[in-house]
C-alpha cells in the first residue's frame, strides 16, 4: 500500500469517524488521534507543495475530465492547515466543554465527517464533486448545530437545513448548466471556456447557492440563530470553519469562470457592504453574547466579499489574497471567540450582555481571550485581521474605489462599538452585589481558546510568509 498526503488528508478523518461511531466509549481518543493524523498529513502535504509547487493526483488513474483529480496549491494547503489547526484546538476544547455522554458520542463522528467534507472541498477540482462535498458538510454541520437538543437549537437547525438544501440544489442546477454548455465538469474546462448564456446562468445559480451557504447578506437569515444556539465547540466549528468552505468555492469559481462584467463584482461588494452595516447594527442590539458573536460572523463574511470586490474586475487577480487573509484571520479568531464565549457562559451561568457586569464571577482568562480575539476581528495591529483589512483598503485606494474604503471604516467603527459593550461588562465592577470570586474560572479548558486568540494576533507578524505561501502553485495563475 502506497500512501500520499492528499489521500491521507481525506481518509484519516473518514476512518476516524467510522471508528468513533463504532466504538462510542473510545470516541474521544479515536477522534483526537484522527485529527492529529490529519494534521500530520497536512504538514506532509505542505512540505510537498513547498518543494514542488502545486501537486495533483488523478484518483483511480482516470485523468480529468473523465475522472476526478485532487489538487493542492498554496491556497488549498493554507485552508487545510487552518482547518486542521483550528479543528485540533477546538477538539481539545471540546474534551472539557462536552461533559454529557450523549453529546460526546455524537460530536466526534459528526465532527470528523465534517472535517472529511471540508478537506474534500479544499482538494477538489471538479464541480460535481464539490456538490457532494458541500452536502457531506451540510449534514454533519446540521447534526452539530442541534447537538444541544434544545428547542431553539432544533428550530435553528431546521432553518439551517432548509437553507443548506436549497443552496446545494441551486449549485447542482448550476452544475447541470455547466455540463450542458461544456460537456465537462473539471476546473480546467471552466478556465478555457468562452463566455456564453448557459455559463452565465450557471454562475448565477452557483453564486446564489454559495451565498446562501456562506450566509451573505441578505441570505444570512439562518446563521445567527444556528451559530448562537449550538454548543460552544460546535459554534466554533460552524462559524470558524464551515462557512469558509462555501467562501473558498466562491473564490475559485468566480476566478475560473468567465465573469459577465464588473456589474456582478460591484453587486457582490454591495451585498458585502449591506452585511457589514446590517450585521453591525444587529450586533449592537444583540442581547446575548453568543448572538453578538454570531452577528459578527455575518459582518466578517460581508467584509470578505468586499475584499473580493475591492479593485473591480481588473483587480481580481490580486483581490483574492486580501480575501484569503481575512478568511484565515476570521477562522482562527472566531473559533477562539466562540470557545471563550462558551467558557464565560459556563462560568457565569448566563450570557446576557447587560448582566455581565453584575456577575461576581469573572472568568478572567476567558475574558482576556475574548478581548484578544476582538482585537483581531476589529482589525487592530499587529493581528492577522489587521493585515487582511489593510490589504483590502490598500487595493481599494490604489484602484480609486474610496466607497469600499469608507464602508470598511464604518464597519470597523461599528465593531469597536459592539465589542466595547462586552468588554465594558468585563471591566466594570461597580454593579456587583456579592463578594467577587477571586481567580474564578482558570481552567484547562481556557488553554485552547487562548492559544487560538494568541495565534490570531501573532500570525499577523507572519503575514509576509503566509502571503508568499498561498501564492505557491499559482492558485489563480496558469492552471496545468
Amino acid at each position: 500500500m502506497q500512501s500520499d498526503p492528499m489521500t491521507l488528508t481525506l481518509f484519516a478523518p473518514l476512518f476516524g469517524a467510522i471508528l468513533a461511531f463504532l466504538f462510542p466509549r473510545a470516541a474521544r481518543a479515536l477522534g483526537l488521534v484522527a485529527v492529529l493524523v490529519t494534521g500530520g498529513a497536512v504538514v506532509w502535504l505542505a512540505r510537498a507543495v513547498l518543494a514542488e509547487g502545486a501537486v495533483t493526483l488523478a484518483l483511480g488513474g482516470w485523468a480529468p475530465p473523465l475522472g476526478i483529480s485532487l489538487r493542492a496549491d498554496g491556497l488549498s494547503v493554507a485552508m487545510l492547515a487552518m482547518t486542521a489547526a483550528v479543528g485540533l484546538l477546538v477538539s481539545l476544547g471540546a474534551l472539557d466543554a462536552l461533559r454529557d455522554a450523549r453529546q460526546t458520542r455524537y460530536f466526534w463522528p459528526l465532527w470528523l465527517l465534517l472535517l472529511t467534507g471540508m478537506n474534500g472541498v479544499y482538494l477538489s477540482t471538479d464541480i460535481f464533486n464539490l456538490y457532494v462535498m458541500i452536502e457531506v458538510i451540510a449534514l454533519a454541520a446540521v447534526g452539530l448545530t442541534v447537538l444541544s437538543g434544545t428547542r431553539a437549537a432544533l428550530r435553528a437547525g431546521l432553518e439551517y437545513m432548509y437553507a443548506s438544501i436549497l443552496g446545494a440544489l441551486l449549485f447542482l442546477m448550476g452544475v447541470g448548466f455547466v455540463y450542458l454548455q461544456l460537456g465537462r465538469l473539471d476546473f480546467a474546462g471552466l478556465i478555457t471556456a468562452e463566455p456564453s448564456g448557459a455559463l452565465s446562468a450557471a454562475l448565477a445559480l452557483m453564486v446564489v447557492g454559495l451565498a446562501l451557504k456562506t450566509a451573505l447578506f441578505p441570505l444570512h437569515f439562518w446563521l445567527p440563530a444556528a451559530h448562537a444556539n449550538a454548543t460552544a465547540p460546535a459554534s466554533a466549528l460552524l462559524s470558524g470553519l464551515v462557512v469558509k468552505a462555501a467562501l473558498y468555492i466562491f473564490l475559485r469559481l468566480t476566478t475560473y469562470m468567465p465573469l459577465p462584467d464588473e456589474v456582478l463584482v460591484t453587486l457582490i461588494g454591495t451585498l458585502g457592504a449591506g452585511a457589514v452595516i446590517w450585521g453591525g447594527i444587529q450586533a449592537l442590539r444583540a442581547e446575548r453574547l453568543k448572538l453578538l458573536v454570531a452577528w459578527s460572523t455575518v459582518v466578517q463574511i460581508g467584509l470578505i466579499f468586499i475584499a473580493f470586490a475591492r479593485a473591480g474586475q481588473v483587480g481580481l487577480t490580486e483581490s483574492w489574497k486580501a480575501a484569503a487573509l481575512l478568511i484565515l484571520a476570521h477562522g482562527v479568531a472566531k473559533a477562539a471567540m466562540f470557545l471563550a464565549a462558551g467558557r464565560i457562559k459556563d462560568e457565569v451561568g448566563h450570557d446576557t450582555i447587560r448582566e455581565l457586569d453584575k456577575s461576581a464571577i469573572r472568568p478572567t482568562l476567558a475574558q482576556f481571550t475574548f478581548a484578544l480575539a476582538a482585537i483581531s476581528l476589529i482589525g487592530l495591529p499587529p493581528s492577522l485581521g489587521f493585515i487582511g483589512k489593510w490589504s483590502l483598503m490598500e487595493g481599494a485606494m490604489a484602484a480609486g474605489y474610496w466607497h469600499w474604503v469608507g464602508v470598511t471604516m464604518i464597519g470597523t467603527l461599528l465593531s469597536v462599538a459592539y465589542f466595547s459593550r462586552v468588554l465594558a461588562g468585563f471591566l466594570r465592577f461597580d454593579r456587583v452585589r456579592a463578594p467577587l470570586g477571586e481567580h474564578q474560572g482558570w481552567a484547562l479548558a481556557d488553554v485552547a481558546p487562548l492559544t487560538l486568540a494568541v495565534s490570531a494576533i501573532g500570525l499577523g507578524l507572519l503575514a509576509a510568509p503566509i502571503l508568499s505561501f498561498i501564492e505557491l502553485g499559482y492558485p489563480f495563475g496558469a492552471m496545468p
Partner: protein
Amino acid sequence: MTPDIIYGVTGIAVFAIGLVGALCAQDRLRRVLALKLASVGAGFVLVVAAWRAPPAAPDPVPHALVITGIVVMVSATAVALALIRRLQSLEAEDAE
C-alpha cells in the same frame, strides 16, 4: 420538437416551482416537499443534457450524477424530517 426541449423546459419549470415553494411555504412539511420538487427539476436538466438524438446512446456520466443526487437528497430529506418530528413532539409537550 424533440424530447430534450420538452423535458428541459419541464425540468426548469418544476425547479422554479420548487424554489418558490421553498421560499414561501409556511408549513414545515410542505417546504420539504418543495425542496424535493426542486431537486427533481435539477435532475431533469442533467438527464436532458445527457440525451442524444437516437440512435446515439446517452452520455452515462450525468446519469450517474443524478443517481448520486437522488441518494444525497433522500439523506437530507430524512434529516429534515427527523428534525420536524422531534420539534413537533417538543412543541406538543409545551402545549400540554
